[in-house]
């Protein structure tokens, strides 16, 4: 296990009182790793029109936890694994069947949620997990999970460096991309796996109700503000990370004292609103 204390010390240097406790430093570190991943994957989620897809994976977290309880496997293992499976299943259905994508996802979505509820209705004492699943709890994140997030962060970085152009090409026209030598199936499945993992961790942080927002809102903001496809990446990153930081800091203020996950999303929604105003103003100036 790598020693993360220098990082915490660095975060402790920030001139904010609320960041002095260790658990706040851990939460901030986790958010600083998670929000950029969610933001840049969100760019592709928007390009692929897959918002509903990520929502379905988020909801499968519940079934993953339930499955873990049933098979007495650590939910922190069963949840991401189950999410990846669901992601691959949906991607396969989307590629192979002639059902429209939202219908296919809607079916998988219902199945996993119903399965989770059915298991929970049998077992008792999972109300606490249910709560965490709905609202998330970034403040209880452990050191081990942060290390895993760090690994995921590296993976995402590599993925974005190699695949950004290719994924955009696939989103524009998959047939054209394939003819021109892009390995469409490979990239689509890799994307589904990575997205599933990131979504599962986002569920941890902000809860299933807000997980789609964490992906979509920064990317949608970026779409409004950016002029180029490269710029969209950076704007999404900026909006995502700044919302994560500001949301956590705000939620810890005595006068606010709100749930951190919800606050993060609210801040990023403010970003989006501002970007809409900016777009409208720019449009008027042009006209």
């Amino acid at each position, binding site marked *: 296990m790598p020693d993360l204390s220098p990082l915490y010390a660095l975060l402790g240097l920030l001139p904010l009182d609320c960041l002095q406790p260790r658990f706040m430093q851990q939460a901030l570190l986790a958010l600083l790793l998670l929000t950029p991943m969610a933001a840049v994957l969100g760019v592709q989620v928007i390009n692929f029109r897959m918002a509903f897809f990520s929502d379905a994976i988020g909801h499968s977290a519940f079934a993953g936890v339930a499955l873990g309880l049933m098979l007495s496997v650590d939910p922190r293992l069963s949840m991401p694994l189950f999410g990846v499976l669901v992601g691959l299943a949906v991607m396969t259905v989307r590629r192979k069947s002639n059902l429209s994508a939202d219908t296919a996802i809607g079916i998988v979505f219902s199945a996993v949620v119903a399965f989770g509820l059915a298991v929970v209705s049998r077992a008792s004492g999972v109300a606490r997990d249910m709560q965490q699943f709905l609202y998330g709890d970034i403040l209880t994140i452990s050191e081990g999970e942060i290390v895993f997030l760090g690994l995921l962060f590296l993976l995402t970085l590599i993925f*974005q460096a*190699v695949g950004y*152009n290719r994924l955009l090409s696939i989103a524009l*026209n998959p*047939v054209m991309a394939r003819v021109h030598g892009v390995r469409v199936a490979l990239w689509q499945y890799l994307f589904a796996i990575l997205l599933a993992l990131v979504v599962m961790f986002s569920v941890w942080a902000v809860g299933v109700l807000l997980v789609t927002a964490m992906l979509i809102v920064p990317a949608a903001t970026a779409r*409004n503000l950016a002029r180029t496809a*490269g710029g969209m990446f950076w704007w999404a990153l900026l909006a995502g990370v700044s919302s994560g930081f500001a949301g956590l800091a705000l939620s810890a203020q005595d006068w606010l004292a709100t749930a951190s996950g919800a606050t993060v999303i609210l801040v990023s929604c403010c970003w989006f609103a501002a970007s809409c105003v900016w777009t409208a103003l720019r449009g008027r100036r042009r006209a």
Partner: protein
Amino acid sequence: MNRSCPPIAKSLSVILTSTEHAAPAIVFEGLSVRRGHTAILADVCATVPRGGSTVLVGPNGAGKTTLLLCLIGEIPYTGRIFAQGRDGSAWPRLGYVPQQLQIDSGLPLLVSEFLSLEHQRRPLWLGLKAGARARARRLLDLVRIGHLQNRRMGDLSGGELRRVLLAAALGHEPELLVLDEAEAGVDFQGERLFWEVLDAARRHYGFTQLMVSHNLPLAAHYATHVICLNKSVRAAGSPRDTLTAANLLDIFGVPIHLYPDQCGGADPACPQCGAWYGPEHLPADQPASPIPARQRDGLTPPRCRECSLHMPEAAPPENIAREKKHA
């Protein structure tokens, strides 16, 4: 793609490996595609001449796009497709021009970025290399829209977008360029320009071109080879031999005259809507009565079933009438 097909039939391998200029670039042999119980393509046999501009013509649902999808390996089929790359490789380098992109107008993507997507390895978020920029400019100049390189893709007009798609495909230096109704939905001018640019590029680079199009006059003008398709091949050859009134009537069911000198006799079509008035398509109130007989009997001309205009009197063909006057 049927790349692992059994050894090529001897005659075909001779055709494909011969160095003659006229050797075909692609040979479709007994190609069939079924979806459920419906035959989409049935026993298609056709050749696409190397270096030529081949146009696939046929009504909607005739299987034109399906044939292209078979060629680019997108859907399974029975039968065989033979093709060979220029340098003897197993398959020619392909370029593909789709009809549309799945973008909404708000997507921030510059034309120059789009043209570099499949070319530049460095991710777009680290910026375009100067080389990629210059290459995009060159490609755009080729399709005569060099000034658009910093425009957003969503801000392009339909005609401009089609030419950007063409430029992207040309950027892959294809040996075989496949276009799926790539110019459809563009105004007359735009469509003509598209064909013109395409023709110039083909002559310059010498690639083989296979194109689905609904624009028969432009196909007649620019194509070097035409394949008329309706489930199976109905006619193939030079535009003048294939796009005849009789063939087009057979395929589309409406009289279309591309070549004035091929209009033989009077056309038994409604002058208002062009619906064909042949023995099998008689108006409802005049069953089974050939036109001359009707006139002898002094009946009123029947109404067209499509637009209820009276059908024309069957006058003698104009060219014959003129001859008579001369005599």
